[in-house]
């Protein structure tokens, strides 16, 4: 299996400041009810700008080898 990258949001830590969404080069994030989420119909290019700027470490790109992990991802 090759490396895969994924955008992960930890809503529990998100304070809804909107920095990630504002500086996402693809406009792929939005704030709804003071929490960030992926915006439907947009592309995330996994550039990681959101991770660099998020003051609360609530959004990040995870690289992993295996698909099956302890976390179940749902979209």
């Amino acid at each position, binding site marked *: 299996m090759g490396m895969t990258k*994924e*955008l*992960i*949001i*930890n*809503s*529990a*830590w998100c*304070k*809804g*400041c*909107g*920095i990630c969404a*504002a*500086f996402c080069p693809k406009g792929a994030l939005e704030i709804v009810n003071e929490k960030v*989420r*992926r915006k439907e119909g947009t592309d*995330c290019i996994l550039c990681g700008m959101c*991770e*660099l*700027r*998020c*003051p*609360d*470490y*609530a959004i*990040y*790109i*995870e690289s992993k080898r295996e698909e099956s992990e*302890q*976390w*179940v*991802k*749902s*979209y």
Partner: protein
Amino acid sequence: MSVVSTGDVSEKTLQTSDLIYKYMRPEHLPQIWCPGCGNGTIMRDVVQAIDNLGLSRDKTVIVSGIGCSSRAAGYMDFDTIHTTHGRAIAFATGIKLANPELEVIVIAGDGDISAIGGNHLIHAARRNIGITVVVMNNNIYGMTGGQYSPTTPTGDYGTTAPYGNLDRSFDIAGLAYGAGASYAARGSVYHVRETIQLIQDGIRNIGFSIIDVASICPTYYGRKNKKGSAVDMLKWQKENAVTMEQAARMTDEQKKGKLIIGVLRQAQYPEFTYQYARLIARLAKEREE
């Protein structure tokens, strides 16, 4: 995209990136800082710089003072000490003297480092003791609710400057430069990659280093001065930042209101603990003879 854990809620709150997991204390996150506060980003910049340099977590010490910035120490997974207001550099000096092999990093705010702690800043710079100071400079006293600080621009508002600040403001990196710091630089919350590089270079510098990072305080400074949201404040940094090289070609008039980032000075002076170790060795040799 959201994540659903197979475990319980407490397990889910520990979910974080490898960088944060390795260098922070996730059980104490999320931090107490307000939404959009720049301090979290600067704290991440510091651990990213530490990771890039491959520093040992066991040989790196984080020292903080008092104020919003000072809470950083508790979140970072090193030997950490949250000291008294203004005195972080003095505590850090003692740690470095006692064990010069430690990488000692001070995280401080603008009031902490340049008002109540201003004396320690200039003398640590003069002494060129090998510690690195990262300033979370948000132009305001945030923890106490928005009083003007030594870096609040003239005319701006704070709860103790209801008619506008009459004081002139400090350039902290410039102050340290003038006092003899061997590395003085200015970064910003918006310019993440550049700031990480500046912190890295500061840590690598053998003597006293300071990286004055323009933070943002949307809650107090931003609101009092109609600077808009955290996003607006970052956009301001993006649009008004000029590099040191660009600034060198600008007139004073053109530089007004600009955020000049980059390295002010990098120079080689003998570092204090190195000098002291040499003195001890010299005396030991003289006794043998």
